[in-house]
């Protein structure tokens, strides 16, 4: 079954297009990483999927329903981000109790065990939590609600490295026990890699690529060697990124379309061949400027 279907989805904020003609399909029970640079439209897409915002044009379906104003989609979706607003009159424990009433599949046992593990105090008020703790508490809501579509928008904001690690592990364990569709948007693809099955990379509101993480790892290879050599090899192939190292060395990330034979040839010519991590690849693919930050300071 298709959990999310977007067809030519466009969202305009005034003059600016936050999403432009985005088409994507997400199958059920997958953990999908939504990756993109700042302002690429990640949050906009997720808020439309959760039914908070209305699309400007195109079609969007979640569980075959238009999410905006749908009670059905709302009941089966949980949206977690660092802006979650809870009534200040309720303590953390009371918030969990209220959540359990709204979400039919809520697992109170899991919620309380996570609550204790992260040493929350049941009398605390959500507004008074630190940024990291707030994110951690929101994450508990997201996991324990066991919604068929669980959306995490930058869930690790403010969390320290240890909690982030715990979160990814908790997410994976709970997913294995109770498979469901999870979408996580994040900047840190490197950390997230281990839990993801699919990656959806968006750039300027459009679908740049959507593929299993395993394929993404094979998508490109890195070549490094002297500039002349590299330029010779990459002249007629799909180059993702190049970077000059020092005076005469060059690094190029290129699309991995080589036959085994060609690759052997490259290696024999003295060029070093390396793999490109999905995290680096996504940065290269979404680079809007030529060159890097160095060129800003390099005025010669």
């Amino acid at each position, binding site marked *: 079954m298709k959990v999310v279907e977007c067809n030519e989805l466009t969202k305009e904020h005034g003059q600016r297009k936050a999403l432009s003609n985005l088409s994507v399909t997400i199958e059920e029970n997958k953990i999908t990483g939504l990756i993109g640079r700042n302002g690429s439209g990640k949050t906009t897409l997720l808020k439309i999927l959760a039914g*908070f915002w209305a699309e400007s044009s195109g079609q969007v379906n979640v569980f075959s329903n238009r999410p905006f104003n749908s*009670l059905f989609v709302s*009941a089966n979706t949980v949206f977690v981000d660092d802006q979650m607003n809870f009534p200040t009159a309720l303590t953390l424990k009371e918030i969990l109790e209220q959540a359990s009433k709204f979400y039919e599949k809520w697992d109170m046992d899991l919620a309380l065990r996570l609550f204790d593990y992260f040493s929350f105090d049941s009398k605390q008020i959500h507004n008074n939590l630190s940024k990291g703790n707030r994110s951690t508490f929101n994450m508990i809501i997201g996991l324990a609600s066991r919604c*068929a579509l669980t959306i995490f928008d930058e869930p690790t904001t403010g969390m320290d490295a240890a909690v982030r690690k715990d979160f990814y592990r908790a997410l994976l364990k709970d997913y294995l026990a109770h498979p469901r569709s999870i979408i996580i948007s994040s900047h840190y693809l490197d950390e997230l890699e281990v839990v993801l099955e699919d990656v959806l990379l968006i750039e300027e509101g459009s679908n740049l690529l959507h593929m299993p993480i395993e394929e993404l790892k094979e998508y490109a290879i890195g070549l490094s060697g002297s500039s002349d050599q590299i330029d010779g090899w990459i002249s007629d192939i799909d180059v993702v990124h190049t970077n000059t190292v020092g005076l005469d060395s060059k690094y190029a990330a290129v699309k991995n379309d080589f036959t085994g034979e060609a690759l052997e040839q490259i290696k024999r010519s003295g060029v070093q061949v390396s793999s490109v991590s999905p995290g680096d690849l996504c940065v290269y693919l979404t680079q809007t400027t030529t060159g890097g930050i160095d060129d800003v300071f390099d005025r010669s």
Partner: protein
Amino acid sequence: MMSLTDPSLAVVVRKQIQFKMKSCIGMFSTLIVLQLIALVFSFGGTGMMGGTRSSLEYEMNYYSADIILVFTMLWAFINAILIKTKDYREDDFVFVTNRVSSNLSNIVLLLIVSIVGAITAMLSSYLLRIGIYFFSDNKEIIYTEVEFLELLTGIIAAGLFIFLFSGLGYIIGTLVQLNKTFAFIIPVVFLGFIFLVEMSSEVHLLLEIGKFYFNEESFWLLTSKTIMTSGLLFTAAMLVSNRLEVKQ
């Protein structure tokens, strides 16, 4: 495949009302504080007359709990605006909701709140009498005996007026949410319209509106007038907010 849940609108609205009753507990404490303040004001009396007749000099003070009711209506008005501000509004959307259920639960909450406000406001007139008895020098108190049925009609009528005011606040809150400039436009248009009408036709609009609702002798006419007006206000608010986006 993972099973999906499909709750009915009624179930979600009921849960949201319970949720809001818990989270809006602050509303009730402000109600108590406000009514106490109004009670203190009421000790001053709402009117006075006096005179002398041969060797007799007399003075009469009128006391009524009207100020308490007026305060309660203002409280309902402000609460209805507050419930539509960003903080309260987004509390809804953290759990299961859509705009219809959010509005319906808000309306029921305001209705409950209006009834509570009406009961306490009407009963406070007894507290006022006790207060006057203890704190006033004049020990002669003449009061109108109120039968239970009359008290009940009084509470219902007061509740309807309070609800009407919350409806007014609710539509204003919704319009302001639609566009912030309404916060300036509404008072300007409202006052400007009143002045214009008064200048051109010598009719004071506020007074006329007040007469239309408050000087109604028939209980049933009063009930239908207030219910129909608040119904209109709330329906308009629901239609407007059905297109609104949240979490921004």
